């Protein structure tokens, strides 16, 4: 029997470390070759680590949420044959299973017990059992599963009975959720809810959720953006009646195989036009080096909600894509992001970002800039609003754009000009397509 050490492989170009987000095995498991051992997450992508060989898991080298350097050992397997470790570390000897009487031990025990006074000091402390999970005992709140009998000493039960308290409704603060006299006092002091089994009751439970994986990335990214970038947010309304008419007509006429157009591709094309006049908005600001990288290519990030949280997919070179191409790419990327197949490069490299919650978009938002970009366009909900045309109110399809800019490098004036330009393009959509 040998030992095979599995190290964290190189999981992507230029990635030096990855966060362990999930273990698929535990110590003692038998694994087959190619079985998935763990999942790690790099900046954007999640990568599964397969087992290179059959074996039994001896050791796991990281906790969930821990960042592991590429090349450091993450799993040790017991394998048939030599294994891949030249120097054999003494493996921790497995303890005999608890509760199992081992007869061979008994003679020693007798000796031990006979000289009991001595043995009390001499007995070697038993090594801490391997992998014993530390029980998590909630300090308050109902610790019982639904339908489980409440745990209370006979005197407490008697008192509850006489006070007409149904112990099933009393949260136990004692060990293992045991109900104490104090718990009954507290229950009575709060006003018994016993007569209203479906009534309101304070829920004192606290659930601890570890911030790991994508959620941690999002948290770090948001904190970075908000602490580094002084945001200026500009909200303007746009009359999209003409745009909606055009969109409806195009969707109606569209050839088979073409994607359904949403508002996004029009906005993307409008942004490309506006950026060609104001290249300062399509940039990466390296504030440490004091350099703004103005990009020729317009790589538009699209904030996408997925099961595990927010991802930004990137439509590269929007300036080189027509409206149909933009629509197809947006649809493809959002699908990939949701089913977890988005590649690393499809989730990075944006130079400006759009955030849109569609029908949930609200009246106005304060978007957080996708650091280190300098601008983000937020799309709010479109609705029919009365608009004064000089003589009367007429119903128009109106939509707000809430956009944030890095005020260190974008002045309010420039931001306003940029949005007004986009507004003009969207309100007269033919302008988006007229060349020259």
């Amino acid at each position: 029997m040998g030992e095979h050490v599995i190290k964290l492989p190189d999981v992507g170009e230029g990635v030096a470390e990855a966060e362990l987000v999930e273990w698929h095995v535990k110590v003692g498991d038998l694994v087959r070759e190619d079985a998935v051992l763990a999942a790690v997450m790099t900046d954007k992508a999640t990568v599964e680590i397969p087992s290179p060989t059959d074996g039994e898991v001896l050791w796991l080298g990281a906790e969930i949420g821990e960042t592991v350097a590429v090349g450091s050992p993450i799993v040790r397997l017991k394998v048939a044959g030599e294994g891949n470790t030249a120097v054999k570390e003494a493996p921790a000897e497995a303890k005999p299973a608890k509760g199992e009487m081992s007869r061979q031990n008994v003679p020693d025990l007798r000796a031990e017990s006979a000289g009991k006074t001595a043995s009390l000091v001499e007995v070697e402390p038993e090594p801490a059992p391997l992998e014993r999970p530390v029980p998590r005992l909630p300090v308050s709140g109902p610790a019982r599963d639904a339908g489980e009998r409440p745990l209370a000493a006979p005197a407490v039960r008697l008192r509850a009975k006489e006070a007409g308290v149904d112990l099933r409704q009393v949260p136990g603060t004692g060990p293992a959720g045991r109900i104490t006299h104090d718990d009954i006092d507290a229950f009575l002091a709060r006003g018994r809810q016993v007569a209203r089994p479906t009534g309101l009751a304070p829920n004192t439970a606290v659930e601890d959720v570890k911030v790991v994986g994508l959620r941690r990335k999002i948290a770090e990214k948001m904190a970075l953006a908000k602490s580094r970038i002084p945001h200026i947010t500009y909200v303007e309304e746009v009359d999209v009646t003409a745009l909606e008419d055009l969109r409806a007509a195009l969707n109606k006429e569209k050839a088979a195989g073409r994607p359904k157009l949403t508002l996004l591709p029009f906005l993307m094309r409008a942004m490309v036009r506006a950026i060609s006049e104001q290249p300062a908005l399509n940039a990466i600001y390296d504030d440490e080096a004091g350099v703004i990288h103005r990009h020729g290519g317009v790589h538009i990030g699209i904030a996408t909600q997925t099961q595990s949280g927010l991802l930004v997919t990137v439509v590269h070179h929007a300036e080189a894509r027509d409206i149909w191409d933009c629509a197809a790419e947006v649809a493809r990327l959002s699908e990939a992001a949701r089913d977890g197949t988005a590649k690393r490069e499809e989730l990075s490299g944006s130079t400006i970002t759009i955030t849109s919650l569609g029908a949930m978009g609200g009246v106005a938002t304060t978007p957080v800039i996708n650091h280190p970009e300098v601008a983000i366009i937020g799309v709010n909900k479109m609705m029919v609003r009365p608009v004064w045309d000089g003589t009367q109110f007429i119903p128009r399809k109106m939509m707000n754009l809430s956009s944030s800019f890095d005020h260190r490098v974008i002045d309010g004036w420039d931001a306003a000009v940029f949005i007004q330009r986009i507004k003009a393009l969207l309100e007269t959509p033919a302008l988006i397509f007229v060349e020259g």
Partner: protein
Amino acid sequence: MKEISCKLLVVGAGPGGYVCAIRAGQLGIDTVIVERDRPGGTCLTVGCIPSKALIHAADEFGKVVRMSAGKTPLGISLADPKIDLKRTVAWKDNIVGRLTNGVTSLFKKAGVKTVYGWATFRDGKTIEVATETGLQVIRAETVVIATGSAPVELPSLPFGGPVISSTDALALQDVPGRLVVIGAGYIGLELGTAFAKLGAKVTVVEALPRILPLYDAELTRPVAKRLAGLGVEVLTGAKAVGLGPKMEVVRVETADGKEVALPADKVLVTVGRKPLTEGWGIEELVLDMSGKFIRIDEQCRTSMRGVFAIGDVTGEPMLAHRAMAQGEMVAEIVAGHQRSWDKRSIPAVCFTDPEVVSAGLSPEQARALGREVLTALFPFQANGRAMTMLAEEGFIRVTARADNHLVLGIQAVGQGVSEFSAAFSLAIEMGARLEDIAGTIHAHPTQSEAFHEAAMRALGHAVHI
């Protein structure tokens, strides 16, 4: 005879009935109790107490026999011990007499009126008692049925002649030369062991594959070992077919299908007990049944308003302490207190050699509930006090939930472990976790240290093993 009217009428003065009546009397309830024989029921008169007296006498005698045979390491020698079973039984009867008299005087003290004679229900509020002086009618607002249970008879071996019940066995005047015990439950094994120690050649016949089938094999193994040591032959998977033509042998069909004839001077049939639900007019009451038992709810109420039932007549486990707790509860309910059955543990004890005690769930039962459990046992072989008493056989075993270490069950087998029932049940009723037991100082040198160690072992840090 003039009718009696009362608030509470208890039928049967066994441990359930007499506790109920005394507690009711203490609470100021106008109470009448009816008993056909003398107070105390099976427990005091033909069960728990007299059998323990006989078992103790047999233990003592067994010890001196071993000493006289030079088989003790204690260095004690003596010659030719004898037992006069007539005197033993007289001593036992004296204990029973003192206890039943004690119950009678407790009735007086609590103001409970007693009526002796066979009771028959006329309806749910009225009974007739055939007393020595004539028919007594009693009307009551509330009735408690506590009629108890009786030994089950085997159709193939009806009681009579050499075939005796546990009641008869406790009144034998001589030790039978050859005793065949049918049924290796706790009653059969307790009495069979006692008679083996008194000098009888004992054979035990059990239809199931092992002795004490209600307990797990690990727990009963030391008992089986000791039976073999006492020369008791145990035939498992075997069935008694009947007596031989001259009633001097028991015909038994063994596990392999052969029929053997076991010579027997007495045949003790202990194949269980049945609730006494006949002969007192149950048909006059409209009671829902649960199998052969009277169905009760968590307050021991039957399906008939104002009629309670307690004790063996209401189901398993048929144990005196369960009946007593029910009796006390019912008296308090009748007195208007808020009570309901909420016991977590009804400990069970076998006064075999060695003794067996169980409270709560066995490891197997706990696992069957779908829980992950921790279980550990500590052997008396590693307990100093046990060694000094020649009591190294057996162990204490603890089972707890793996997630929060709540103790679910505790069992022990070993000399004198019946007294542990208190500690075990207290732990379970109080909702102890393994850490509570491990964190309690257990006096040294006592067998109870094994309890402490078993809990620590379940937590993974026993010291003395």
